[in-house]
């Protein structure tokens, strides 16, 4: 039997890698991907808790997290494309305008 703490440690390591990618990369697309990575690591811990506590709430919460992640990716990428039309760069240290 795999202990619960293994799943939580795996989730924590993946979350930290996502935090590093979010803070360190210049490419806005990779930053979005890092956010997805962090959301997925949280999902793993939620499903593990749901399994080990024999409760269904963790899985339902993962369902909603996936919904919100899909909405977030669609809106974020739409904003990215709208920005790119006016200023063709996706490097975050060169994005310094809100008005198009």
């Amino acid at each position, binding site marked *: 039997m*795999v*202990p*619960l*703490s*293994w799943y*939580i*440690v*795996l989730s*924590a*390591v*993946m979350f*930290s*890698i*996502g*935090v*590093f*990618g979010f*803070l*360190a*990369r*210049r*490419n806005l*697309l*990779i930053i979005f*991907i*890092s956010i*997805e*990575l962090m959301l*997925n690591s949280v*999902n*793993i811990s939620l*499903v593990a808790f*749901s*399994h*080990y*506590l*024999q*409760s*269904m709430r963790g*899985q*339902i919460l993962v*369902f*909603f997290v*996936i*919904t*919100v*992640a*899909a*909405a977030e*990716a*669609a*809106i974020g*990428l*739409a904003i*990215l*494309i709208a920005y*790119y039309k006016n200023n063709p760069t996706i*490097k*975050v*240290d060169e994005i310094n305008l809100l008005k198009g």
Partner: protein
Amino acid sequence: MTTPQLFFAYFAVAMTALSLLIVTRKNPVHSVLCMLGLFIHIAGLYLFLNAEFLAAIQIIVYAGAILVLFLFVIMMLNLRKEETVKKYQAQWPVSAGIGIILAAFLVLILGNITVLPALGEYSIEAIKSEGSMMTVGKVLYTEFLLPFEIASIVLLVAIIGAVVLAKKRTE
């Protein structure tokens, strides 16, 4: 080590390696493809945890919809010239330090976590007798009905917002 532990060890090593590849590749297409491998591994882990519905959702929604969205955006933007410049920001050592400290803290705090003795009603046998979909559906449409409706509004806002943001200005 028993067989499930070996299985989990493979998944843990592969997922950590794929996560590191995602945040270190220069070409975003490579990152997205590593992400695809990671999502398939996560779906396998969900199957291992008796969450068949979520494993299917993970493949369909994440690998099928969100990653394709990322790939479309990468193809729409002409990123050829961006690959030649440096990929990390100037403060990346600080970011690496924050990541390592966060990982160490989380592992120290959560490394010995165990299950509470109060177990719920959804044991493996109970889920097997009804099926994973039916169990999830029953909880989703009774106890979590209002959040479910709110999620549909969130998706509607996402659709309208994406169309409004990405369309050409007409005036």
